[in-house]
């Protein structure tokens, strides 16, 4: 009994030597085989990615799909499986977020409902275009271009706004109260509705339109669209910041549940094991992210988010412009429909 540690140590050493000799890691317990993606991946890597993206999504109140989908593709998971499984992950993280915002009465159900009407129509249109582009063989390009344009524009605007706000605050000048009296043409539209929780009185036309845009972009890019929705609600529709994130999460939750069901029923591409590992990491990360977010000033928060979004956009742009290492790509023929 006393020499047991010594024995174990000897065994470990043996294994290590064998690893060195063969050049292959023998300790493969951290590897987990994904049944739908049909490849083994490092479980801790997946968990870490889930936590990191969860942290970001909890901090800024976004789904994080625009970060996670490219990351999964990068570690070798096929784009179709990545997009489908990320929707499930976002459903979990946005539900956990939406619940805590709901308790704080920071969700506007009426606003979420109106956005959802638009989002469903937009998703339908997006899926139709998705299929059409796949038939034309230029889907990859359109996805990459929409990442560049969307992330570049949103990230750039947020960064610009963030920098000017921070500079203004630093130079001692009073930060302008942007919200008061800045009524644009949006506020002159008919069919107005009172959104009680958000304390705004607004036409439903732009709300449904924004929902449609989010649904459309989400279907093309395979993301929840929170990164786009949050700034639009804040800057364009002037929804108070207090209810924006909760409402965005509510909308994301419902659209992602629908997307998961659609992906499962039509393409059979949702990898439940992959999604589970990601969402466990995601919900843990989201809690710490939410705490970190509360300790940051909102100007700094926007600046950071802008920087993050812009850098992902730039990464996609670089990939398009720089000559690829191999001009050829090979993949399984996708059966359309």
């Amino acid at each position, binding site marked *: 009994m006393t020499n047991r540690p010594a024995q174990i140590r000897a065994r470990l050493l043996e294994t290590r030597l064998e690893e060195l000799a063969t050049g292959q890691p023998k300790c493969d317990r951290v590897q987990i085989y994904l049944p739908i993606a049909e490849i083994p991946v490092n479980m801790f890597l997946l968990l870490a990615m889930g936590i990191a993206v969860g942290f970001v999504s909890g901090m800024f109140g976004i789904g994080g799909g625009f970060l996670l989908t490219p990351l999964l593709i990068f570690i070798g998971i096929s784009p179709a499986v990545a997009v489908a499984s990320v929707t499930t992950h976002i459903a979990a993280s946005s539900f956990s977020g939406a*619940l805590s915002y709901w308790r704080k009465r920071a969700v506007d159900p009426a606003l979420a409902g109106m956005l959802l009407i638009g989002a469903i129509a937009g998703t339908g249109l997006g899926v139709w275009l998705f299929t059409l582009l796949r038939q034309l*063989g230029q889907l990859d390009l359109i996805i990459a271009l929409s990442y560049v344009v969307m992330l570049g524009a949103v990230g750039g605007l947020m960064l610009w706004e963030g920098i000017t706000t921070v500079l203004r605050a630093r130079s001692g000048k009073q930060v302008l109260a942007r919200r008061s009296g800045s009524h644009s043409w949006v506020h002159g539209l008919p069919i107005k509705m009172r959104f009680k929780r958000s304390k705004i009185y607004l036409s439903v036309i732009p709300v449904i339109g924004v929902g449609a845009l989010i649904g459309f972009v989400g279907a093309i890019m395979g993301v929840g669209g929170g990164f786009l929705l949050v700034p639009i609600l804040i800057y364009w529709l002037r929804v108070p910041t207090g209810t924006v994130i909760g409402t965005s999460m509510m909308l994301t939750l419902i659209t992602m549940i629908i997307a998961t069901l659609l*992906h499962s029923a039509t393409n059979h591409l949702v990898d*439940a094991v992959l999604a589970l590992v990601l969402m466990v990491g995601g*919900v843990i990360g989201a809690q710490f992210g939410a705490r970190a977010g509360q300790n940051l000033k909102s100007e700094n928060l926007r600046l950071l988010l802008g920087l993050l979004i812009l850098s992902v956009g730039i990464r996609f742009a670089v990939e398009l412009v720089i000559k690829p290492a191999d001009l050829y790509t090979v993949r399984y023929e996708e059966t359309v429909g």
Partner: protein
Amino acid sequence: MRLRPLFLIMATALLMAVSSPPAQAERIIVSVSNHRVTVTSNYTGEELVLFGSIERDAETPPDRTSYDIVVTVSGPRADMVAHRKERRFGIWLNTDSREFLNVPSYLAVLANRPLAAVATPDIQRRFQLGIDNVLLMQRVGGDYADVVASDPFRQAFVRRQTERGLYRQADTAVTFLTPTLFRATIPLPAVVPIGTYEIDIKLFSKGILVTRAQTAFEIVKVGFEQFVASSARQHGILYGLATVMMALTTGWLASIIFRRD
């Protein structure tokens, strides 16, 4: 289960005895270390070993003593497509593509010495020895054909598959333990496709095909992996509902565990 491949080999041998010219006096008996590779949650690739014995008989010319073995392992067939990027308007985008129809998703050509030493280029072409000579059917415009090995699309296809460990050609993967007993290692990377793998073993002597034998193995998902994969495929909506429930439970648990108010 174990007997079946052996039976197949015997049947093929019998067929060959009837149909082939009398010069083919030898026969090969082969067995692979595992006929059923199971993929479980900790699967990270595997290495199979193929053992074979060359059986000589009375008709074997006494001067025929040195043999060469070429083993071709081909995985489940699939349609694949190769895209080529070109620079247009300052960005790199897919401009040209070529479809590869019904090609092996895994291909390993294993021999005991370089194929050039085993047989003449003519013989290599005739018996599809080596990746360059294996038939890779393509759709070129409206036609269906394989192209020369130097075709850029074919080369790129083989190169990309080789990089992923799915295509390989090894001149030293077959070793002779005795002049008539050989052994070959078949490496299966972690990304191997699920399905049936065919092994074709050809015996050469002085550049002439003496005999050949076939066997097979399969790679299958079992247990939980099989359950997940088959339910995703057969009960899509139920699977989707279960996944959504899993997501909601995880989210709800997290908000309970981390509740601060």
